């Protein structure tokens, strides 16, 4: 058919104009991460420390997590850099590309923007083509800037052509996922579904690589992530995996173009199945709604926290050599003659993951504010639901979430401790539960602060994230001795949490924190009952 690509150029300019901020921010953050960490990783370790570190990466759990260790007999800064970074960078770049591609294909179509564009003299494939060309432009820029940026750092083992290979590997991986997203956005009629399936594909490729790296080279080669790791960047520097992935990308794009040319606008090949005609009995109350709206977020976050705990736990097998390989690690983890490195490490991991778990609790309670802003709360409050009960429903759910995420940490740590340690010793499930659950009162104080803000200063509820950020800073950076003034961790509830096993469980302190939390929650609920519903 002639004219399928008519006016692609103008659409590319339109997309680039719309991407001016979004893609620029993505690129800036990615570059800062990749280029900024290159010299840091290089200087943190000396040769001996790197060699020791390489050994810790060679156990199956770490290989599943990070991929195979190449060049471990001469583990240069470059080899370590690509081993430690490439996989995570590809995941981030893939997410950027998936969102980029769907934003300019299915999402525009869903919102009716494509209809206007198509009513103008533009080709049937022009929009998809423009989105793909934009992806090429963005990823080329990323590849070039990454390669140049790392090369400019002038690190011994990271030369110019090798760094360019690294950049191109990242860019081509990104482009592959843009193509996958473009394909799914032809198949499914909703942008959300297309994003979900694209992210699922990303997860599947990661798992294929993990399984393949442990047992089957072929399986790893099928996964684009496994394939790109076979470039052995900064070790052997093979270009063929990049070329193979580029070919695969072209094939996916070709399929997407074919599907797009055949389908009606607004339609997909798999249509959304009709939902429930009636509400289930669990949805027929204000709390049922609150639960329904947040259940997926809480479940997914708990799973994420579990995996986080499990992946930290995976290091426990070689924890001695891992921690002692770097002074920095030793300072973060801390040392105490009465306890093993494993115990100290677990204590640190629980402190860190509990801070992350706190975010889940805050997200759960702040959902109420977004319900107010989006005009949904009005539906509930204009019916026979009191304002206090409405807010209390969110508090109850946040409390449930807090217990759930803390248990997820303990179970995650325990699961991999049992797998990698011949004898978990003191790290029993009961002990881990105790060590994570002692954080609950402090989390509830933060929750109470959020509730008070919701009641008193609804427009300023985002301030709780400032306090959260401060807490993270004070607790995490505070682990490094003599870096921060000692009183800093006294003004966050997390500073009062007993760190097992070094500290004993101080019941009076936990009771005090819980009471404070209760006062804050009650105050917030009372004020909420008195204020106008704001948007």
């Amino acid at each position: 058919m002639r004219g399928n690509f008519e006016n692609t150029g103008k659409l590319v300019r339109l997309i680039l104009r719309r991407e001016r901020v979004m893609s620029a921010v993505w690129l800036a953050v990615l570059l800062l991460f990749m280029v900024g960490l290159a010299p840091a990783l290089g200087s943190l370790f000396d040769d001996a420390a790197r060699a020791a570190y390489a050994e810790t990466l060679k156990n199956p759990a770490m290989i599943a997590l990070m991929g195979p260790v190449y060049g471990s007999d001469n583990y240069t800064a470059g080899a370590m850099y690509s081993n430690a970074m490439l996989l995570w960078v590809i995941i981030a770049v893939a997410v950027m590309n998936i969102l980029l591609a769907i934003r300019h294909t299915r999402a525009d179509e869903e919102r009716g923007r494509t209809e206007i564009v198509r009513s103008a003299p533009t080709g049937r494939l022009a929009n998809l083509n423009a989105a793909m060309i934009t992806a090429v432009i963005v990823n080329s820029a990323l590849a070039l800037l990454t390669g140049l940026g790392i090369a400019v750092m002038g690190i011994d083992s990271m030369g110019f052509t090798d760094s360019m290979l690294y950049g191109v590997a990242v860019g081509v991986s990104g482009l592959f996922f843009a193509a996958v997203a473009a394909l799914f956005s032809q198949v499914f009629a909703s942008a959300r579904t297309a994003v979900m399936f694209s992210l699922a594909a990303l997860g599947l490729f990661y798992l294929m690589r993990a399984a393949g790296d442990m047992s089957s080279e072929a399986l790893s080669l099928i996964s684009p992530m496994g394939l790109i790791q076979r470039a052995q960047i900064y070790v052997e520097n093979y270009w063929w995996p990049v070329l193979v992935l580029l070919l695969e990308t072209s094939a996916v794009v070709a399929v997407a173009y074919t599907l797009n040319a055949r389908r009606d606008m607004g339609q997909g090949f798999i249509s959304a199945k009709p939902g429930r005609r009636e509400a289930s009995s669990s949805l027929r109350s204000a709390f049922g709604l609150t639960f329904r709206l947040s259940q997926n977020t809480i479940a997914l976050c708990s799973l994420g926290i579990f995996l986080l705990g499990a992946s930290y736990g995976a290091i426990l097998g070689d924890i001695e050599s891992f921690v002692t390989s770097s002074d920095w690690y030793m300072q973060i983890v801390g040392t105490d003659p009465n306890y093993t490195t494993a115990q100290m490490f677990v204590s640190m991991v629980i402190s860190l993951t509990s801070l992350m778990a706190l975010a889940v609790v805050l997200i759960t309670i702040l959902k109420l504010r977004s319900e107010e802003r989006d005009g949904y709360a009005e539906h509930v409050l204009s019916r026979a639901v009191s304002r206090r009960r409405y807010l209390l429903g969110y508090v109850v759910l946040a409390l449930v979430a807090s217990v759930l995420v803390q248990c997820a940490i303990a179970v995650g740590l325990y699961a991999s401790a049992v797998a990698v340690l011949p004898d978990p010793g003191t790290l029993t499930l009961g002990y881990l539960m105790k060590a994570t659950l002692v954080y609950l009162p402090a989390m509830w104080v933060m929750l109470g602060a959020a509730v008070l803000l919701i009641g008193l200063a609804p427009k300023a509820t985002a301030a709780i994230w400032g306090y959260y950020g401060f807490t993270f800073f004070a607790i995490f950076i505070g682990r490094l001795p003599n870096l921060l003034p000692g009183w800093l961790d006294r003004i966050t509830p997390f500073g009062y949490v007993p760190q097992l096993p070094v500290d004993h469980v101080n019941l009076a302190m936990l009771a005090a924190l819980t009471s404070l939390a209760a006062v804050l929650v009650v105050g917030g609920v009372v004020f909420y009952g008195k204020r106008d519903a704001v948007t």
Partner: protein
Amino acid sequence: MPALSLETVKLTKRFGRFTALNGIDLKVNEGEVFGYIGPNGAGKTTTIRVLLGIIQASEGSAQVFGMDAWKDAVEIHKRVAYVPGDVSLWPNLTGGEVIDLFVSLRGKLDRTRREKLLKMFDLDPSKKCRSYSKGNRQKVALVAAFASDADLYILDEPTSGLDPIMGQVFQEYVLEQKNNGKGIFLSSHILSEVERLCDRVGIIRDGKLVETGTLSQLRHLTRFSMSVETENPIEGLEGMRGVYGISSERGGVSFQVDSAEIGSVVAHISRFKVVKLESMPPTLEDLFMRHYNVRGGT
């Protein structure tokens, strides 16, 4: 004397320095449809939010069924059905789920009524709300409102996204509820709807209630359009009280005249040998325009 559904006395709402409502006095009886009209931003939705106890009056009182709109909000809401003007619904729930939720938040669900309403409004309840158009989201809110057994219906521009046929269905349900003795508080811009449904109308502008009364009472306050042809040219019309907008046409004059002055104007022009006289009562549109227009009226 029918019982009061809702009443506000000197209702005032301020947001900081801005006065959104300024001394509003409203009364809606049971078995009555009250039309609440006024330009955008006049304070209609603010009034409704105070009546629903979602925001609190700064001064004055707002009572529904004789209870305080703010303090007794939950008790009141058990007997109130509300349809917002701009219906935003949770994108990941289906229309059917939202309807059931809304009805359950108030009381018991009448399944046959729900099914009948779904059919009348031609709504597919199995679709996710994200795929509904504005009109369909409004239908969800309307079905939820009419499926619940309420005593007072508060409707904020409920038909702005509906097609005319659905507008008819809506009007039938409103009249049915009115005949059942329910109170209906209807904010609307759709003239035919107001004309057909409303027993009384209140017009709000800049937070003040500028007129209230039955439509015929309100019409009385406005001007008739007249066009006259006479054998002898009319003189002295310019100086008369209540005469506006005089323009000469071929062989005649057209002008507007206040309802109250019609008698004296007709007496005056009859002296010039009237050949043809046309008089048009004010349309509802004139009524609206006069009150909506900030410089309208004199």
